[in-house]
């Protein structure tokens, strides 16, 4: 019985989507005959068909714009030969190491500056100044200092990952409710408990947002870093294909970047869903 009441309270149905879909149905006319999940795909499908026809009739050359079918064919070929996985693996490792390095440092620095007033006064202004420098403008400097080797690339990516994590961690920690802080004092929390049981959970939504931004920045910097010169990776594959006018491979590379980018976004989103379900405002 008690369990039942409990269930009832927790499982509030989300009425908003029901309402919109009903409203949709009335105003859609002929679209009603198309399955609901296809609605958003209609435009891309039509565009793809036009694109294919334009290629087949010779309206555009395959050096400028290979047809979707040709790109798909090349995708499968590269996948079958294993070349794709090799480049993808190299790129993913680079992005991941840079992302990890940058976000761990960002998290730690954000925490220390968030907690300590003295460090904030002395260190934060410099970091804020650095932040305004466009990251990509620093790439030539990195190449001068560290060459174009692996180390230089990972460092560049980690710098890109650092700022979003640092800024959001700092913000999250500063948004800790002082009323809850008083509660922890009354309940006799130790300093360590205040950190792990109040400050970090309060800052978690911001930290996750920072990680998400860091992920996309890492990916962006990776593309730039790889285009600057390397002997493996998706960026290299694109650059190499461009010199030989294999435009279909360029497209394959772009599609891969997009795919991995959205996959990593989905992953962070899943974490948010798991960890932030307690939030009033969080709607997945």
């Amino acid at each position, binding site marked *: *019985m008690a369990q039942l009441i409990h269930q009832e*309270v927790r499982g509030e149905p989300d009425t908003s989507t029901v309402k919109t879909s009903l409203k949709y149905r009335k105003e859609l006319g002929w679209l009603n005959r198309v399955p609901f999940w296809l609605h958003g795909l209609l435009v891309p499908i039509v565009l793809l068909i036009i694109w294919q026809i334009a290629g087949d009739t010779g309206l555009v050359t395959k050096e400028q714009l290979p047809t979707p079918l040709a790109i798909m064919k090349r995708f499968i070929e590269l996948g079958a030969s294993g070349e794709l996985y090799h480049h993808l693996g190299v790129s993913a490792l680079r992005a991941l190491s840079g992302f990890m390095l940058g976000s761990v440092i960002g998290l730690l620095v954000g925490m220390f500056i968030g907690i300590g007033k003295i460090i904030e006064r002395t260190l934060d202004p410099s970091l804020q100044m650095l932040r305004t420098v466009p990251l990509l403008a620093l790439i030539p400097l990195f190449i001068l200092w560290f060459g174009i080797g692996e180390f230089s690339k990972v460092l560049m990516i980690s710098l890109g990952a650092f700022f979003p994590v640092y800024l959001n961690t700092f913000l999250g920690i500063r948004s800790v409710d002082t009323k809850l802080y*008083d509660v922890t004092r009354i309940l006799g929390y130790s300093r360590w408990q205040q950190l792990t049981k109040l400050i970090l959970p309060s800052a978690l939504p911001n930290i996750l947002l920072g990680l998400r931004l860091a992920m996309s920045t890492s990916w962006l910097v990776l593309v730039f870093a790889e285009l600057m010169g390397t002997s493996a990776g998706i960026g290299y594959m694109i650059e190499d294909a461009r010199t030989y006018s294999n435009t279909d491979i360029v497209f394959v590379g772009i599609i891969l970047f997009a795919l991995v980018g959205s996959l990593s976004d989905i992953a962070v989103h899943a974490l948010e869903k798991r960890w932030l379900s307690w939030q*009033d405002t969080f709607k997945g």
Partner: protein
Amino acid sequence: MSEHSLVIEHLNRTFASPAGPVHALSNIQLKVKQGEFVTLIGPSGCGKSTLLKIVGGLDTGYEGKAELNGRPITGPGIEKGVIFQEPRLFPWLTVEKNIAANLSLKNPAVRRRVDELIELVRLKGFEKAYPRELSGGMAQRVAIARALLRSPDVLLLDEPFGALDAFTRAHMQEVLLDIWQNNKTTMLFVTHDLDEAVFLGEKVVIMNPRPGHIREILPIDLPFPRSRTGASFQELRRLVLQAFEKGEEPALDLGAGI
């Protein structure tokens, strides 16, 4: 040790503000016996919250004497439970984890106490619910259970039922009296509500502002359970009201009681 749990003598609290110092509390004298239920009532700004914060150890910038069990109050601690107007729960913890807070539910003694308290505040079935899923009254009961788990010597309540509707409020008052009679915890209860002050308190402390001071301490010699409609209750209610009318500030919330 004296029979008094809380002793306040010549207590003054002044805040610095741009417009000059604000004398929030002036020469407060108050003694509370072990296990006594004291209600504090007075118009807005008369220093009720300030006094409670000092007793709770959250404000140590006072002058004069404030002692709990013979020791000066120098900071917060689990021997002084505090319940605020808002429940102040941790939104990322379930009801049972909010009550346990920094104690581990894996400890069987804590587990047993938490279950008992959930029963006591009538929240059975909601152990795993999150604060956003609770009503205001339920959340406030969680806050009460959390404070009780530490078995405080004194429970400080700052308008704990101020945000609740009249029915929930009456129910919560019953719950609180139950707890008090079972645990014999000393209670210091701040309210805006005349009926609430007379209904709960063995003593009503009447405060006035500018500067915040105690105008009168009125004993309420009515046995529990009390009836709000009885003649003696109404008579005492009138006495408290009179004490205010003698003062200059009639700005009191008279209507919110039942």
